[in-house]
């Protein structure tokens, strides 16, 4: 009975913490973008706009839910849920401190990568179910792009796995107690850069946000969504980005390692994840969007071969440095 409760309560706490983080990350991004653009950003709701995310959430909940008559209702209604679920599940295997996490699987990173690629199903359902040309084009682009960038994303994420010698996320974090993988000579930096680039692309953030591409496709696959369904999609996207940021902090920045007492670990982890998130945001607000064929070319011609080579190089280095191998 007690185990059962723990099994329920743990995920419940993690999920709510994630929801809170995701909500407030929107404010962080808006403030950060505003500073980049010499604006102030949200300021009116609460002190320094601190209540803005809550106001946004309430507004979205109270919006009318419009379903287009021509939409495929089942697919249309199901899509936000199918989309948001994998985006939340990816947090399942992330340990936030030693022993603090929902499920520290021994194939944690594999689970993360597999589940994170599932978002494409919801995305395509949304694009297809809306019965809208913009949405359909966007869904076609989505499949193209997500598939092209998941491979470099996986290869970049596997480099730390090789260095740590384990697929278990807590082992990878523990392996960095001496040296964060981002500081690992040459390989670490290259892998980190590849990771950031492919994260930006795999998460469909600008300059790779061709699915949303509001100057071409209005709002892409979510053009017909309103109210809470729109909020779910938005939530899923942000959760996915945050999930990838946590993964980046865990794989390259030493997870919870940091000065101070041990209970500060989760705080350090959060700060590092936010750092990765801001890196992604920085890229987003500085570049113009690139075209769909250029995005695919970048992945297949540059990123994929280079990450693959990097992976092989890492494997050689690991073998060479392992005594007795």
């Amino acid at each position, binding site marked *: 009975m007690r185990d059962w409760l723990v099994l329920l309560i743990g995920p419940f706490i993690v999920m709510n913490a994630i929801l809170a983080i995701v909500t407030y990350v929107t404010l962080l991004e808006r403030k950060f973008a505003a500073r980049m653009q010499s604006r102030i950003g949200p300021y009116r709701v609460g002190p320094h706009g601190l209540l803005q995310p809550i106001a946004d959430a309430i507004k979205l909940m109270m919006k009318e839910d419009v379903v287009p008559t021509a939409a495929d209702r089942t697919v249309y209604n199901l899509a936000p849920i199918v989309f948001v679920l994998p985006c939340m599940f990816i947090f399942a295997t992330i340990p936030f401190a030693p022993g603090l996490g929902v499920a520290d699987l021994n194939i944690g990173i594999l689970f993360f990568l597999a589940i994170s690629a599932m978002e494409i199903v919801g995305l395509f359902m949304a694009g297809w179910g809306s019965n809208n040309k913009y949405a359909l084009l966007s869904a076609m682009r989505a499949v193209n792009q997500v598939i092209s960038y998941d491979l470099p994303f996986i290869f970049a994420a596997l480099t730390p796995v090789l260095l740590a010698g384990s697929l278990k996320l807590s082992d990878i974090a523990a392996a960095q107690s001496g040296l964060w993988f981002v500081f690992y000579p040459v390989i670490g930096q290259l892998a980190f850069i590849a990771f950031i680039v492919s994260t930006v692309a795999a998460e469909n953030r600008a300059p790779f946000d061709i699915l949303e591409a509001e*100057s071409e496709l209005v709002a892409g696959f979510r053009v017909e969504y309103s109210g809470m369904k729109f909020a779910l999609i938005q939530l899923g996207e942000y959760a996915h980005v945050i999930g990838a940021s946590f993964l980046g902090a865990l794989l390259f920045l030493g997870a919870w390692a940091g000065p101070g007492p041990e209970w500060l670990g989760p705080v350090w982890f959060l700060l590092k994840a936010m750092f990765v998130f801001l890196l992604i945001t920085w890229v987003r607000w500085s570049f*113009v969007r690139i075209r769909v064929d250029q995005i695919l070319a970048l992945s297949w011609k540059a990123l994929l071969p280079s990450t693959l080579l990097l992976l092989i190089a890492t494997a050689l280095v690991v073998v060479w440095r392992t005594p007795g191998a």
Partner: protein
Amino acid sequence: MSVTAAPRVELDYTGSERLTMNMGPQHPSAHGVFRAILTLEGETVVGVDAVIGYLHRCHEKLAETLTYAQYPSIASKTDYVAAMTSEFAYVRAAEIIGKIDVPKRAQYLRVITSELQRVASHLLWLGTWCLDMGGALGGGATIFLYCIRERELILDLFESLVGARLLYGFYQVGGVRYDIPTGWAAKCLETVDLIDQRINEYERMLEENPFFLVRTQGVGVISRELAQEVGIGGPLLRGSGVAYDIRRGEPYSSYEDFDFRVPVETSGDCLARYRVRMAEFRESLKIVRQVLDGLPEGPISSRPGLKSVAQTRIPKGEAYARVEGARGEVGCYLIADGSAKPYRMKWRGASFSNLAVLPHIIPGHKVADVVAIMGSVDPVFGEVDR
């Protein structure tokens, strides 16, 4: 630097599925109310049908009902992004018919406002164009907000000169309506210097950005022949290698007094049009500095204080006047019948003529290029539909 043209995609139409997609009249990237009916094959555009007329406001008919003193402030509503130059074309036509002299100081003030207006218009163009390519939730918005920040400075200048920020009514037949207030020249110089600096910043931000280059190089190439055949003008024409500028070819309003260069690029793609406009920023700012240096004293209008309708009468005759607007040749054809109102008036909108090139260059490009090309043409729909 050599830029190769994007190869025209030859498509096999048999057995493939096509999608007809509306871009506009209500669309985030439609500049105004342009509607392009795109025929797509996958992501590639194979046909484009341009539909205009959503913003028609009977400007030319309206001109027949308003006196020569009243219409200039309405003329600014044709091209509301570069309001000064539309007024300019109208009053120039009236001045040619009436053989009305314009005092030197008024001519110089006209030059200064036209050039500041060109800078303001190009700033808005740069911002919105990057917004088209970069997205409202991406890097494009950053450039957009920077550009708007600088445009505000020019609008502030206009506000302290005229009292209005967007539509001015500054030009009058025979001169201009207001003289510059005290301290305006110093403030103007300060603004000009600041914008000059910031332009360098944008250039660095964009031209050292590979994403920007791949989006613009070789995209939407207008050949020299096509440009001349379709009759486009302004930065588009100069981007295609034709050194044609009315300020140089047919100097008006003392443009011959100033030293400036007509920037020309030969590649004819989006990047060439961008470079032409970036160079025009600098040339315009240079002209503004020269005008402020040599601003003569004297009256600002040869027909000051018009009070009655009778005084606004212009003798019978007809004339076509053209000025170099931010988007090309802004022309006004006026027929006067001796009364205080024109008998007939016809606009030659620069955007209207420029828009005609779109169906020639868009097919074969991707959907994403359509917005880049459309943005680089810089149409203002108040001027297209009138």
